[in-house]
C-alpha cells in the first residue's frame, strides 16, 4: 500500500496553516439530509480533490466555502473567519459556461475586475496576463459563440485568474471535455496551481483526474455524504499528466480509492 490512509476526520483539522475548515458541518435541503456531519480542513496551497457518488454533497462542500449555502449545523471557516454571505476571495469554476455572449473574450475576463473597481491600466495588464496563462492570446476580440468548449472553459479559468483569488473551487470543470483536451487542461491546471500557489478544491467523479492532480483525495460516502477515506497522494511533483498514469503507485491509489468508492 503506497499511502497513509487517514480515517474519517483528517488529523490536519488543527493544522496552523489551515485555509478552510469544516467543523462538524451538516447540510439539509428541507427534510433531506444531504451531507455530513463532516469535519475536514484544507491547508493553504493544497490541491484537494473530492470524489464520491453523485448526490453525496461534493458540490455542497464548495458552495459552503463560496458562501452561497449555509450549513444546517456546524461552522465553516475561511482563513480563520466564519463564512457568511458570498465569499469574494474565491474563484468558482464549474462545467457550466458563464461567459456573457455579448462580451468579447477580453471583456469577459475583465468582468470581475470591473466589479472590483480596478483601474483601467491594471485591468488591461491583468486581462492580457490571464489570457496568456491559458494560451488564449490572439482571441481577445472573439465572441464566446466563436469558441469551442475547451476554449470557453479556458476563458472561465482566465476570468478567475484575472482577479487572482486565494482559493479555487472547481466543480467538475472539465466534465464536458473530451479525453485529449482534458489531459491538456490538467497540464495547464497543474502549472497554474504551481504558479499561483493558491488552494484548490477540486470536485470530480474521475479517479484518474483526482490522483493526477491532487495532494490529497477525499472519498465521500453516499448521501448524507461524509468523508469515508482521505488519501495522501505521494507522487512526485511536478507531474507529467501522461507519464504519471504508468506509475506503479498510481495504480495502487486507483485501486484503493475505487474500493472506497464502492460503486455497484
Amino acid at each position, binding site marked *: 500500500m503506497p499511502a497513509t490512509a487517514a480515517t474519517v476526520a483528517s488529523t490536519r483539522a488543527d493544522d496552523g496553516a489551515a485555509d478552510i475548515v469544516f467543523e462538524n458541518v451538516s447540510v439539509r435541503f428541507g427534510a433531506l439530509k444531504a451531507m455530513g456531519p463532516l469535519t475536514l480542513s484544507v491547508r493553504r496551497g493544497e490541491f484537494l480533490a473530492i470524489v464520491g457518488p453523485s448526490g453525496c454533497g461534493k458540490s455542497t462542500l464548495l458552495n459552503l466555502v*463560496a458562501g*452561497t449555502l449555509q450549513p444546517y449545523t456546524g461552522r465553516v471557516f475561511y482563513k480563520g473567519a466564519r463564512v457568511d454571505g*458570498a*465569499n*469574494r476571495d*474565491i*474563484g*468558482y469554476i464549474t462545467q*457550466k459556461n*458563464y461567459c*456573457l*455572449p*455579448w*462580451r*468579447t473574450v477580453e471583456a469577459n475576463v475583465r*468582468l*470581475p475586475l*470591473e*466589479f*472590483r473597481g480596478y483601474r483601467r491600466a491594471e485591468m488591461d495588464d491583468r486581462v492580457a496576463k490571464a489570457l496568456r496563462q491559458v*494560451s*488564449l*492570446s*490572439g*482571441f481577445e476580440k*472573439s*465572441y464566446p*459563440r*466563436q*469558441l*469551442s468548449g*475547451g*476554449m470557453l472553459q479556458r476563458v472561465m479559468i482566465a*476570468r478567475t485568474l484575472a*482577479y487572482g483569488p486565494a482559493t479555487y473551487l472547481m466543480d467538475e470543470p472539465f466534465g464536458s471535455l473530451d479525453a485529449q*483536451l482534458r489531459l*491538456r487542461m490538467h497540464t495547464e491546471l497543474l502549472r497554474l496551481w504551481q504558479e499561483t500557489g493558491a488552494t484548490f478544491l477540486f470536485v470530480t467523479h474521475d479517479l484518474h483526474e483526482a490522483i493526477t492532480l491532487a495532494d490529497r483525495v477525499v472519498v465521500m460516502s453516499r448521501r448524507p455524504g461524509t468523508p469515508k477515506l482521505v488519501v495522501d497522494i505521494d507522487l512526485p511533483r511536478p507531474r507529467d499528466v501522461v507519464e504519471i498514469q504508468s506509475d506503479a503507485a498510481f495504480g495502487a491509489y486507483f485501486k484503493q480509492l475505487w474500493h472506497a468508492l464502492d460503486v455497484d
Partner: protein
Amino acid sequence: MSQAQTTSGDVNAEPAGGQGTRVPHLVRHGTLYLQIVTLTVMIALWEWIADRFDTVFWTSSPSGVLRELVSWAQSGQLASDVALTLTEAGVGFVIGSVAGALLGFLLGWVRRLGDLFEPFVLSFYTLPKVALAPLFVLWFGIGALNKIMFSGLLVFFMVFFTTFQGMRQVDTDLLANARLLGASRLQTFIKIAIPYSAVWVFAGLRIGLPYALIGAIVGEFVAADSGVGYRIKEATSFFNTAAVFAGLVVLMVISLAFLAILKAIERRTLRWQTIGETDATAPGEAHE
C-alpha cells in the same frame, strides 16, 4: 489539402467558429431582380385592370396615384404632412419605448413589484387601446400632443411587455456567478440583466414601431387638421381614391424607413449575435 492549423501558434487550439455561409452572387441578386420584376408586373396589372374594367373609382390606378403624389408634393403640403406625422409617431415612439423599457426593466427585475403589478398591466394590455382615442382628444386636445401621447401609449405596451419578459428570463445562475465574481446587486442589474434582456427589448421595439405610426394615424383620423392620416380621411370624404392610395404609399415608405433605421441600430448593438455562425435563437416576435 492543407488546412490552416492554428490561429495563435497554439498547436492544439481549436479553430474558431464558422465564417458564415456565403450566398452565391447570382442567387442573391437573382432574388432581387425577380422581386423588381414581380413589382413591375403587379403595378402594370393594376393599371391594366383599372383601365380595362373601369374600376378607377374603387381601386384608383398607379398613374392616378402618381399624379396625386406629384400634386401633393407640389402644393408643399406633402412635406408638412409627412413632417407632422413623422414627428407625432417619432416622439411617441421614443417616449413610449423609453417608458416601456424602464418600467419593464424595473418590474422585471424586482420580482415582487412585478408580481404585484402584472395583473393590472395585463388588464390594460387586453383593452383594445384604439377605444381610448376619443378619450385622448378630451385629455390632450386635437393638436400633435394628442397623437404623440396616443402613439406613445401603444408603443409603451409593446416594449414594456417584451422587456418585462426578457428581464424575467435572465439566467439566475449567471447572476449568482456574477456575485461571486464580486458584483454588487446594482452591478448585476446593469452589467448582466440589462444587456441580457436587450434582445427582447429590441424585439419589443420592432413590434412597437408600426404601432407608433398606427397611433399617429388613428389620432389624425379622430381629430386633426393636417398630417398624412388626416389627408387620407379627407380624400375619402371627397371620394378621391387616388389620393387615399397616395397617402397609403407615403405611410408605407415612412414605416419601411423606420424599420431600416431600427435594424441598423440593432445590428450595431447586438453585433455579438450575428458574428460567426448564425444559429443564435433570438426570441423573435413571440410573446409568451
